[in-house]
């Protein structure tokens, strides 16, 4: 019965082809360092899931942000767990992505024909840092307030257009409700939309080009 259902679907959706080309594709003999891309992907998905869950209770306004997070931590069952996973997962993701990048550098895996894979990876790293920067403000506590003050001031030191960039980031000259809501929007809509698109491109290229060998003495 299940087999019949599967072959009915497979005939129409090409499920087996998808499975073969994504999961059964041929790879060279590699080592554990090659698992870091998948680890980053897994952590990214976890950030998405826990982030969506947090948005059930979190409210991005100066009057409510801090209290809503206190409520998540103390009043919601397993709130501490979901927020904890989001909090620690963020740092872990930056680490896995960064070591993933180091592996690619040291194995020379960014070379022809994988240059575009590398470039999309760099875009993803920048977006991940952007997610970290925007997410850090959301608890609206002293630490996030001053970290964002300093962070946006750094943008303000850019020659010529620094002050303009600072105002765009903050949504005005001061940190305010506008800063919080635009950081929230960047954090849950704009960066995720970019990341989703670029992750699919990155994965498509990994599958299309195959992964590189561990370099040997000749290479």
């Amino acid at each position, binding site marked *: 019965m299940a087999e019949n259902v599967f072959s009915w679907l497979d005939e129409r959706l090409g499920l087996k082809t998808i499975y073969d080309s994504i999961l059964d594709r041929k790879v060279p003999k590699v080592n554990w360092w090659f698992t870091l891309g998948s680890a980053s992907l897994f952590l990214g998905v976890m950030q998405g899931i826990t982030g969506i869950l947090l948005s059930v209770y979190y409210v991005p306004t*100066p009057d409510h942000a801090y209290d809503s997070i206190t409520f998540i931590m103390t009043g919601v069952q397993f709130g501490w767990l979901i927020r904890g996973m989001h909090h620690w997962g963020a740092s872990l993701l930056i680490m896995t992505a960064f070591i993933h990048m180091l592996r690619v550098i040291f194995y020379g895996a960014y070379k022809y024909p994988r240059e575009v894979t590398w470039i999309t990876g760099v875009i993803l790293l920048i977006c991940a840092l952007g997610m970290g920067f925007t997410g850090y403000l959301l608890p609206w506590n002293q630490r996030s307030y*001053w970290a964002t*003050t*300093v962070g946006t*001031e*750094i943008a303000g030191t850019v020659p010529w257009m620094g002050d*303009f960039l600072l*105002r*765009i980031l*903050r*949504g*005005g*000259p*001061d940190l*305010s*409700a*506008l800063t919080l809501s*635009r950081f929230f929007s960047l954090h849950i809509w704009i960066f995720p939309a970019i990341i989703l698109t670029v992750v699919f491109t990155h994965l498509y290229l990994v599958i299309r080009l195959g992964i590189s060998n561990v370099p040997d003495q000749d290479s």
Partner: protein
Amino acid sequence: MPSKYRSPVLDRRSFVKIVSTALGSMMAAIVGLPAIQFFISPALTKTVGDEWISLGSIDNYPMDIPTMFNFTLRKVNGWEKSSMSYGAFVLRKEGEDPVVFSDVCTHLSCRVSWDDEINQFFCPCHAAFFDQLGNVISGPPPRPLDQYEIKLEGDQLFIHLREG
């Protein structure tokens, strides 16, 4: 198609290509340009602040010790009305006009505090130290502490707050 209907410069395929590119770009611009303006709008709104703040009688401030004065101002950012807090350090010297420093660190805008024991201003964010006159002793700040323009009316001290 009879040849008399056929354009000598443009075939049907190129015509459709040009028209759809033009229409597509137009639609993208109609949504895209206002979207950019929408996003950066608060950055383009100029807020100007220009007022004199009373710091009370000059006699309230001791000699030779920078003394903190806190005040709040009502501000509107977008839809949010909030009170922003400000800090100023008043320094009096015998026989000289008082000097009033802003407590905003000139490095990246954390707030400095006065440390009596070492006789210096200290910013905790990136370990910056300023002397009594606001000059940088060590740390990353690019310039001395900012000073407010002051005004004395009798014994009443005022500072000029200008923003924007």
